[in-house]
């Protein structure tokens, strides 16, 4: 469970997150909103790249903001990036192994098996020894997801994992995402613009608009919410 209370981020005169309070209970939770709503900023606060002006984040009882960025990763906070960040200089195995060897429970004895399990989990066929530089977009995405699930993840943040993927790949990804809480017990927070993916994966969803939380609850209800529809489509009187 992640409890976010009154989280505020300011960059000069801009407030990308304005007193955001929300609870992500368990399973796969959606976080949606129009471009610039503050979704990635929220992830960056959780990862430790952005220091908030105010507020607190507790994850499974732990004060997340008190930990250094890399310690959060070692604790079990994993993420993928909007522009995928698989390391080109390393092989597929080393990409995933890197996260394993830096995680709290990542013992050398289980590394080989854990990495291969993660690659199988995301459905990445092909040689683990292959260099990431030779892979296509789809495989790189899967390598990134494998990095996020290897070993014992506790919280997995997925930042637009389906962006630019064809439909059948998105469906494969949805199956993988749903299995993360089911089989690994980790809490997943999914940011995506693909509403069919969010509906397919997320039991609950929170909606951000201009840094403010405008709705949260069961996904189907949230997507029907008038404020949410307005946020996405805009309103006439705004013009």
């Amino acid at each position, binding site marked *: 469970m992640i409890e976010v209370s009154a989280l505020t981020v300011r960059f000069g005169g801009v407030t990308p997150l304005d007193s955001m309070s929300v609870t992500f209970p368990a399973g796969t939770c959606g976080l949606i909103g129009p471009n610039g709503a503050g979704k990635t900023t929220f992830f960056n606060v959780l990862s430790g790249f952005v220091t908030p002006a105010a507020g607190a984040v507790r994850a499974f009882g732990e004060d997340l903001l008190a930990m250094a960025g890399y310690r959060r*990763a070692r604790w079990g906070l994993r993420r993928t990036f909007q522009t995928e960040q698989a390391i080109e*200089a390393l092989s597929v195995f080393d990409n995933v192994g890197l*996260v394993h060897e830096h995680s709290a429970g990542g013992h050398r004895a289980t590394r080989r098996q854990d990495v291969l399990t993660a690659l199988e989990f995301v459905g990445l066929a092909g040689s683990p020894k292959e260099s990431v530089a030779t892979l296509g977009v789809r495989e790189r995405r899967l390598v990134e997801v494998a990095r996020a699930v290897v070993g014992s993840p506790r919280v997995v943040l997925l930042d637009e994992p389906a962006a630019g993927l064809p439909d059948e790949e998105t469906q494969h990804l949805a199956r993988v995402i749903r299995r993360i809480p089911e089989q690994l017990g980790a809490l997943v927070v999914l940011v995506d613009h693909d509403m069919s993916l969010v509906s397919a994966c997320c039991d609950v969803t929170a909606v951000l608009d201009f840094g403010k939380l405008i709705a949260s609850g069961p996904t189907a209800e949230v997507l029907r919410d008038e404020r949410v529809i307005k946020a996405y489509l805009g309103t006439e009187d705004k013009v």
Partner: protein
Amino acid sequence: MSVAEEPEVSAADRPRAAAVGTWLRATASEIERPTAIRAAVVAALFLFVLLALPGLVSTFWLQIGTTVAIYSIVTLSLALLVGRVGLVSLGQISLLAVGGWVAVRLGFAAPGLPFPLLLVATGVITGAVGTLIGLPALRLSGLYLALITLMAAAAISVALQVTNFPNGGPGFLGYSGALAGSVSAKLHRPDWLASSASFYRWVVVVAAVMFALGVLHVRSRAGRSWAAIRQSEPSAIAAGVNVTLYKLWAFALASFMTGIAGGLLAASAGGLTTYGFPAQDSITLLAVVLMGGVFSFWGPVVAALLLKLLPELLKNWGLPPDLLTILFGLGVLQVMLTAPAGLVVQVPRDLAGLVAMVRGRLAGTGPAEPAE
């Protein structure tokens, strides 16, 4: 291989033996033929350079060879920083001077210290100095880091002009104007390293150890963490990499290596002069390292040959050494534009292309090389 064939394995050891067997098989399958061939080539070349070369060339060229081997450690350290971690340091030549200073000072302070130990101590102290200079690297990167290291280099060369290399004088600085006789400072070599050939062989072995240290790092946890940092610091942090620690470790390792090279340089035939380490030489060093190639361990070797053998060859052929500045300028431009991985990748690639083209022409049927 089944357990039944090995009656000496006790029941308790069986799972362990099986695990080791699996590991061995996995390891054996990982060592592929190209790797074995590469290892054989490296070993053959190393043995040739170590054993045969001293008998083939004059003392003069052997001393040039010694200098090339010493500088290959310096180019290695910079190639590691630039190619593996993505940190550009323009202070490496000044750290070389620091290494030389420390080695000479230690030589006077503890004359009984065995030479190998003195070298290691020099490396460790220079490593500490380099790490201090590297501290800004935690906050800066790219151009700003390069600028900071260049400023530190300039400060070191100014300090060196004032303090001189130790010559057995009193105090911490160990320099006395009254004792100043010769223009160059030297570290006394032990008897077993007195001859040019034995010192050359020792330097080649030390350089090989440094390269092995580099390879070991790149293939280990440190190398993987550096690869993550080089690509993107946020993704490295998200992978649990302590970016600060691994950056500092890279600076410490590179400075350690450069310090050892400085110690070797202090003991070499030419000795050390205070005007021998101008800050701008670090820029030339970066140019040749980029030219050689920073993503391969052959790159630093090529870079050291360009830096220390090429000038002597030019002199030998009666060409002005100033030509080098132009050659390096053109060379680095050429490499950056056409082959960012350096000459070690470009030359074999272009040669292979040429061979394919010639073969195609000779056969007359092969696919015509597209006109460029």
